[in-house]
């Protein structure tokens, strides 16, 4: 009964929701000149939420409302990660919002709501709750993408995003209804129990699960559901693009990881090849098409599609079937996914932040306009290079370590070919990352060339962005040379996933 539920455990979520409401209400009462304070109030609230969560939930493992909400180490890991990520995006957008967006209160308030949606996605133990949380995130993102409303590109990308987002949500909802029809439950553990009891999958279940995978595939932009991503990423305000590429993907993978390891693991034989195929297609296509891009946001969009391929490789290797025919959960794979998500988030945010700063000075996102960046701003180009090297996976940077975790897990689970393919794809990605770096550092203007946008403009990096870039820079190096703490945190989160909490009650539903 509700009265018995430990509602206090939800305090961090209440703080998040309260902060969003507070920022929105303050926007209504503060005079226009004072609204610069809004993001900092929001960031303070996010810090408070993370602190509360860490203190309050450190060693708690509990299911609220019969498994609708699960509080464990895994939820905690993603709570901290996603909220910090949201806060970073918030700080990273301060300069951009001041310059380009007319609605600071709406922007930050809705950003906080979307963070709430993300953390609920990670801790939901049931499909409908996960769906609602995902919609909360998606609705917020639709608005954020469209907020530069006098920019026709922003409008176009928002329209595309809303249409395809609604479409994918509908597909997923249809899948959920079919899964419910066959199993009689929407709870992950109940689905797992059903799958264990009925190893031969019903046709309705197969179609339902496929539809859910397709819906989630749209959300993370996996091939062949990726078509919207480059257009939307290109048109959205740059900090929002970063948020789309990192936050929404990280949250979707938080959901996927819990759904697949707690709900669908018993049927891994049936879906691992499908996911592996998606992974292969995604990493190959994303990285190959990225080569041809001239707009840096489009290039980063395709590169992030490629990264989804690596992450899907981890999902495909989530379990191995042992000699006795039982499915064993592979903690290595889930640790790999989580570690890679963090490394990818840090590097990608840094890259997008550089792009945002360059855009606010030059008004251009073309790679060709990056010539002369090293001379104009050595700091920006250094951070950009490190971020791109990290995304490519060069040693000493975050990407190397995280990819190492992920690819070894894949090889262990029997996907040697896929891990090999992922390494080749990483090499390809190095090529197009190097093109940007070459443009920034090496290329010299030859006779008769026009000045590039970067060369024309005067450069200075606003303090907030400067500090944020510094933090991200240190983060990339730190994860690269000393990943043990992060890996340990991800390990304990994976432990929580691997533990079967209470399947006996789940059967009932």
């Amino acid at each position, binding site marked *: *009964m*509700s*009265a018995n539920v430990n509602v206090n455990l939800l305090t961090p979520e209440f703080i998040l929701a309260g902060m969003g*409401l507070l920022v*929105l*209400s303050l926007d*209504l009462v503060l005079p226009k000149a004072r609204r610069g304070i809004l993001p900092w109030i929001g960031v303070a609230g996010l810090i408070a939420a993370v602190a509360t969560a860490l203190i309050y939930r450190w060693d708690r493992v509990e299911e609220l409302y019969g498994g609708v909400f699960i509080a464990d180490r895994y939820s905690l890991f993603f709570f901290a990660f996603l909220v910090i990520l949201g806060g970073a995006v918030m700080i990273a957008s301060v300069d951009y919002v001041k310059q380009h967006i007319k609605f600071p209160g709406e922007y930050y308030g809705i950003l906080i709501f979307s963070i709430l949606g993300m953390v609920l996605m990670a801790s939901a133990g049931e499909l409908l709750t996960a769906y609602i949380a995902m919609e909360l995130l998606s609705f917020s993102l639709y608005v954020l993408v469209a907020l530069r409303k006098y920019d026709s590109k922003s409008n176009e990308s928002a329209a595309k995003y809303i249409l395809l987002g609604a479409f994918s949500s509908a597909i997923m909802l249809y899948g959920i209804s079919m899964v419910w029809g066959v199993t009689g439950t929407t709870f992950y553990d109940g689905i797992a129990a059903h799958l264990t009891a009925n190893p031969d999958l019903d046709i309705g279940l197969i179609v339902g699960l496929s539809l859910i995978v397709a819906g989630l595939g749209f959300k993370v932009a996996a091939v062949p559901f990726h078509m919207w991503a480059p257009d939307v990423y290109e048109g959205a305000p740059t900090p929002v693009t970063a948020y789309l590429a990192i936050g929404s993907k990280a949250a979707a993978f938080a959901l996927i990881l819990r759904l697949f390891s707690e709900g669908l693991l018993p049927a891994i034989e049936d879906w691992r090849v499908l996911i592996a195929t998606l992974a292969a297609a995604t990493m190959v296509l994303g990285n190959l098409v990225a080569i041809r891009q001239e707009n840096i946001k489009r290039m980063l969009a395709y590169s992030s599609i490629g990264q989804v391929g690596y992450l899907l490789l981890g999902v495909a290797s989530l379990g191995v079937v042992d000699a006795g025919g039982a499915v064993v959960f592979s903690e290595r794979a889930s640790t790999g996914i989580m570690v890679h998500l963090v490394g990818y988030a840090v590097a990608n945010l840094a890259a997008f932040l550089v792009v945002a700063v360059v855009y606010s000075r030059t008004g251009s996102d073309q790679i060709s306009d990056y010539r002369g960046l090293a001379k104009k701003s050595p700091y920006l180009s250094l951070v950009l290079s490190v971020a791109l090297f990290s995304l490519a996976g060069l040693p000493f940077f975050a990407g190397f370590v995280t990819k190492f975790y992920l690819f070894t897990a894949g090889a262990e689970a029997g996907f040697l070919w896929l891990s090999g393919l992922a390494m080749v794809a990483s090499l390809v990605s190095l090529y197009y990352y190097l093109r940007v770096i070459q443009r920034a550092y090496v290329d010299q203007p030859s006779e008769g060339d026009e000045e590039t946008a970067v060369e024309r403009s005067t450069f200075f990096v606003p303090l907030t962005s400067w500090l944020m870039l510094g933090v991200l820079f240190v983060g990339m190096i730190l994860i690269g040379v000393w990943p043990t703490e992060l890996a340990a945190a991800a390990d304990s989160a994976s432990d929580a996933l691997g533990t079967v909490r209470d399947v006996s009650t789940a059967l009932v539903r």
Partner: protein
Amino acid sequence: MVEDYFRQYGLITVFAAIAMVVPISMLLMSWMATKIKVRPRRPTPVKLETYECGYGPVGGQWTFNARYYTFALLFVIFDVETVFLYPWASEFGVLSAQFGVFALLEVAVFGVILGIGWGYAWRKRALEWR
């Protein structure tokens, strides 16, 4: 009980059928009256005006104020809110006996959150007609 359920909706169906049959038969009768030459048909330009005894319409197409759309959107959102409140309200007696004040509190939170949205709409002058 099942029978009762369908009998009630059967009544609604009958109502709907009557509501549809009456106007259709009126149109039909008027049409037949023309056919059998009971009703004469002599159209003149004055008769065919939009407002037969009023002012003649001036100007071209009617322009539609975009503000209607704002209200329509707000209406949809509060409509959906009603959908969530309705099952709670219809069972409130039983629920409050079982869950006590929590039954009220939960929906109060729901209402307050949407109330903030309403305050926002008011404050940002979305509800004014200009």
